[in-house]
């Protein structure tokens, strides 16, 4: 099946990067990356929001000038009034499509076209219907969904942009507690933003020194990098219209180019995998979730 019509979305940077690096990352994406949509903004931890406030509009306009459609990331876990205020300010102050990552945001985007991010639990057609009826125009399905579920959902919604994570560490959990701060002897309330010290996540190893997970503030992610390549034709045939690349600390422009070449048929899945391993070395790839097995596993589907 032809994957040429598939779009590329760059997901929001999950990590806390130094603000000037964050800005320059997006400036380069704006100018060079073959991404159709770029979702920007903080979704992991509300304590990080202030770092990007002053730069956000600058980044948005640069991306738009670069021909990218810009989506704004909503927060993934909201419990505090301060967080709701920040969210309302973000949504009220911008015309861009908002990506919903928490159910509460649905109330605020009601009647306005919006996107649904991968942290929202959508496992079936009935639930997809609800979100579509509420105004969702695109849905990035949860990374743990197996191929069969993705196929069934996508087939039922030809008018909705169904998106699947194709590159990046998988978001596995979010907590009120910050394990990242805790690992460095701090609590969340006095975290000193130590998560910024690991721009690609803090590796959690088993006691046998096997790398297993990474901490990213209050979020826990896979150690492996989720990579979907040979499965893309099947996904395209099912009606999946977009793939998501989640930023890692590597050359994401090169990652996007690799995926574009693969989607355009200029590159084979095996060669794409080799390129990605050069661009993002040292981190093993996995695709178990899409094959319905342990997410950390790799299935050679090429």
């Amino acid at each position, binding site marked *: 099946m032809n994957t040429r019509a598939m779009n590329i979305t760059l997901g929001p940077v999950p990590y806390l990067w130094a603000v000037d690096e964050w800005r320059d990352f997006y400036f380069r994406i704006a100018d060079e990356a073959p991404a159709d949509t770029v979702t920007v903004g903080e979704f992991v931890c509300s304590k990080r929001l202030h770092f990007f406030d002053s730069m956000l509009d600058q980044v948005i306009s640069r991306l738009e000038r670069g021909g990218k459609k810009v989506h704004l990331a909503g927060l993934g876990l909201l419990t505090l009034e301060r967080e709701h205020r920040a969210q309302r300010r973000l949504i009220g102050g911008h015309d861009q499509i908002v990506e919903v990552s928490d159910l509460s945001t649905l*109330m605020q985007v009601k009647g306005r076209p919006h996107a649904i991010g991968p942290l929202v*639990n959508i496992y079936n057609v009935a639930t997809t219907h609800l979100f579509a009826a509420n105004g969702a125009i695109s849905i990035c399905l949860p990374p743990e969904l197996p191929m069969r579920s993705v196929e069934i959902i996508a087939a039922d919604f030809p008018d909705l942009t169904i998106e699947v994570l194709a590159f990046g560490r998988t978001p596995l959990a979010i907590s*009120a507690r910050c394990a990242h701060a805790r690992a460095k002897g701090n609590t969340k309330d006095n975290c000193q933003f130590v998560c910024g010290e690991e721009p690609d996540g*803090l590796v959690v190893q088993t*006691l046998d020194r096997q790398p297993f997970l990474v901490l990213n503030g209050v979020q826990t992610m896979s150690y492996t990098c989720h990579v979907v390549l040979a499965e893309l034709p099947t996904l395209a045939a099912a009606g999946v219209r977009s793939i998501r690349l989640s930023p890692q600390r590597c050359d994401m422009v090169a990652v996007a180019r690799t995926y574009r070449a693969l989607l355009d048929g200029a590159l084979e899945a095996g060669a794409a995998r080799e390129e990605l391993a050069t661009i993002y070395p040292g981190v093993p790839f996995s695709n178990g979730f899409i094959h319905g097995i342990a997410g950390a596993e790799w299935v050679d589907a090429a």
Partner: protein
Amino acid sequence: MELICPAGTPSAYRDAVDACADAIYCGFRDETNARNFPGLNFSRREMADAIAYGRHRGVKTLVAINTFMRAGEEGLWYRAVDDAVEFGASAVILADLGLMAYTASAHPDQRLHVSVQAAATNAEAIAFLAAAFGARRVVLPRVLTLNEVAAIASTVSCEVEVFVFGGLCVMAEGRCSLSSYATGQSPNMHGVCSPASHVRYREDGTHMVSELGGYTINRFSRDEPVGYPTLCKGRFNIGDANGYAFEDPVSLDILKEIDVLRKAGVKALKIEGRQRGRAYVASVVSTIRKALAAPPEAVADVTAGLREFSEGQKTTSGAYKKRWR
């Protein structure tokens, strides 16, 4: 305040009734509920009998159908709701929004509770669910402080239920794929977390190692009790240090704050533990029943004996106290 007790088996159900539970929650013997463990849960016949047994004694039955429907097999979840309604369940506890929509439309008079797995962590999310599906009660995720619980209870139109005792999720419930990453079996899709089928213990010299899906989750010396390898309660290496990266092997116990929860307007207190035995159910339920009737200053003494039922005999106030974060 209502006391909501777990029952993993028909006999635990009867014990909970005898121990004066106000309501008992349980699930069908399949992946429609989040405690889909071997040897647990209720057949259709057992559920019908239990609901009737409870009703006869003034005890409500809440049927947990709180996993997420697998695409293409929604019928399994729809039938679970239909049957629970037919058997006379006081409420169904749901997590999947699609299943909530089905229930609200097919059984508009059925009381619908929002499961902790639905991850409604704030007043606006709860308002959305109450407006969309007529949800009458929400079970709050264990990510909130007492003050945040109170603020929600005073704002939302539906009743609020909170966990007060038992196993503790460290991660926001319903939003965790850790188990799935290591084993392929997930709470949301299969109703299991860190499943026994993927657990292995092996001796390593003088140590006992516990594994989940081939990953070492903990290592115990001879004088340490060997704990179950629940992924988020494991010991890991970070940099040069090793320890419990997410949470110690502890249980939630917020019983000393019962009075605070009562004043906050919390409607129901929930005990975790459908996978626990009859002794747990009987002792924990009757002790908390006594605590609910005791004056606030006596609660600590009344509940002191419950420590033996906690994981590692250690307890935490969890997210209810701000310092836990």
